[in-house]
């Protein structure tokens, strides 16, 4: 079930908004106990709103949002017990835009605590499970958004991406997602991580769905016509080589598809590529610590161990280092801009690996996700730091788990990556594959393990 398909069915009167919402609520009832994607389900409100939804681009579409995005009257917990009583009275701008376009917000989705981690295992409601393998992480921090989309627990979702938080879970859960260029989508009413890098974007089943949702979020139509002929595509070979062999093989095959559909594919070198991680950290760590400072003074012990330690790190980054990071970012952007004089799109693996297993005490004092966290930085930082739009599309499987391909465009050129994504998905069917996660024995075991974890 795609977003475009649901909207078309409603427009053709083959489906009512209430039926679409009820169908989604039924799936949430049935499958979310296994996936743990939702923090809040707005069942009664959503059904009532479905009956009064205005006709618009998203008329009647059941959509859910990450629980750092305000929905008036519903809690915004950001996955932390510190905010369980935080109940905003106003919608975030992005939610207001969804509603104005006729979408129905069916609930709020799990996130790594305060959207500050790549696993979605530290939330106060427990980890989100990857629908492709319930004993594995969904990625993060928008893990609930990606898992809900993959499992059909919403036709599309919103996530936030500071340093990969939309792209990473989308790749690990086998769905399509867009990190827009910063500034195109409002962040008002969204709990921040680091203001320099924060973005809000769509997670959906296809590039076509992402384009539709992004048009509503950005408030202007985005063309995403299939476009490939003559498009110059640069392959960031250094990142392909850095990925696990199974992931690299899948990405290599996807790059062959891009060549087959008419793009001009070449390997590309980015001289400053490996400086991006340090630039990102030098800016993100102190910005995040600054936003949390008041709460760190009063409620330090209430944070999960891993998030607390990352926030504490930001207290000790000197202002001079922060400014060095900002200066270096300018050089880095120039470096990437020179590359984009020769290419229209760059491609690279979204992640170096497939979804790792959920660890029983992974976010605890032993920090069992530390190596995973370090490994992902070189894959997301290069585009975060440069401020480029990135579309992650499913491009195959390694040992039964999804792999994502990042399509990176010029700043504010979302149309090109969405168009190339559509063309890639017209030539492949990876985005149409669905997880089969309904095994009741696995679900029961998962619930038992969650009780032990939480």
């Amino acid at each position, binding site marked *: 079930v795609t977003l475009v398909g649901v909207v078309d069915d409603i427009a053709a009167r083959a489906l009512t908004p209430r039926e679409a919402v009820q169908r989604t609520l039924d799936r949430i009832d049935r499958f979310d106990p296994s996936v743990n994607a939702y923090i809040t389900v707005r069942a009664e409100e959503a059904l009532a709103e479905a009956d009064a939804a205005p006709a618009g681009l998203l008329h009647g579409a059941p959509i859910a949002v990450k629980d750092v995005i305000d929905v008036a009257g519903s809690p915004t917990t950001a996955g932390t017990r510190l905010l369980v009583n935080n109940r905003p009275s106003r919608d975030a701008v992005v939610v207001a835009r969804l509603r104005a376009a006729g979408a129905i917000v069916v609930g709020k989705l799990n996130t790594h605590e305060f959207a500050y981690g790549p696993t979605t295992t530290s939330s106060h409601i427990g980890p989100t499970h990857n629908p492709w393998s319930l004993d594995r992480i969904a990625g993060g921090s928008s893990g609930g958004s990606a898992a809900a989309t993959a499992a059909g627990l919403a036709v599309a979702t919103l996530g936030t991406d500071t340093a990969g938080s939309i792209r990473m879970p989308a790749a690990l859960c086998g769905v399509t997602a867009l990190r827009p260029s910063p500034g195109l989508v409002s962040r008002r009413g969204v709990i921040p991580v680091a203001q320099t890098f924060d973005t809000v974007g769509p997670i959906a089943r296809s590039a076509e769905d992402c384009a539709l949702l992004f048009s509503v979020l950005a408030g202007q139509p985005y063309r995403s016509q299939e476009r490939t002929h003559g498009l110059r595509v640069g392959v960031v070979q250094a990142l392909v080589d850095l990925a696990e062999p199974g992931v690299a093989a899948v990405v290599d095959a996807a790059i062959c598809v891009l060549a087959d559909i008419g793009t001009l594919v070449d390997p590309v070198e980015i001289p*400053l590529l490996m*400086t991006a*991680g*340090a*630039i990102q*950290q*030098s800016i993100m*760590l102190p910005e995040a610590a600054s936003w949390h*400072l008041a709460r*760190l*003074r009063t409620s*330090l012990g209430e944070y999960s*161990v891993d998030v*607390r*330690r*990352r926030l*504490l*790190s930001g*207290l*000790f*980054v000197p202002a001079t*280092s922060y400014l*060095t*990071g900002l*200066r*270096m970012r300018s*050089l880095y952007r120039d470096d990437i801009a020179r590359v984009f004089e020769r290419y229209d799109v760059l491609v690279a693996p979204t992640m170096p690996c497939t979804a790792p297993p959920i660890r029983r005490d992974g976010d605890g*004092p032993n*920090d069992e996700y530390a190596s995973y966290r370090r490994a992902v930085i070189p894959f997301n930082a290069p585009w975060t730091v440069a401020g480029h739009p990135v579309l992650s599309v499913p491009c195959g499987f390694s040992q039964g788990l999804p792999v994502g391909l990042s399509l990176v465009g010029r700043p504010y050129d979302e149309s090109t990556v969405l168009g190339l994504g559509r063309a890639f998905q017209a030539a492949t069917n990876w985005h149409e594959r669905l997880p089969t996660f309904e095994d009741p024995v696995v679900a029961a075991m998962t619930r038992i393990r969650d009780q032990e974890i939480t």
Partner: protein
Amino acid sequence: MSSEGVVTRAAPPPLSLRALTELAEHQGVHPDVRDLEAVLGTLCDLAADLARLETTLSLEVAGQ
């Protein structure tokens, strides 16, 4: 400094736990020592990375 004006900066020595404690308390935050021990590793890695960045910045300035 080399003849081209390029400064190659070595990573600074790590801060002590005592220094971290004082810096945190100066900002009104009171972490426990286990958290600070963990933070120290992150800071050492970042300091080394930043030293490389500063070298790169210096290279760029020298090249202008």
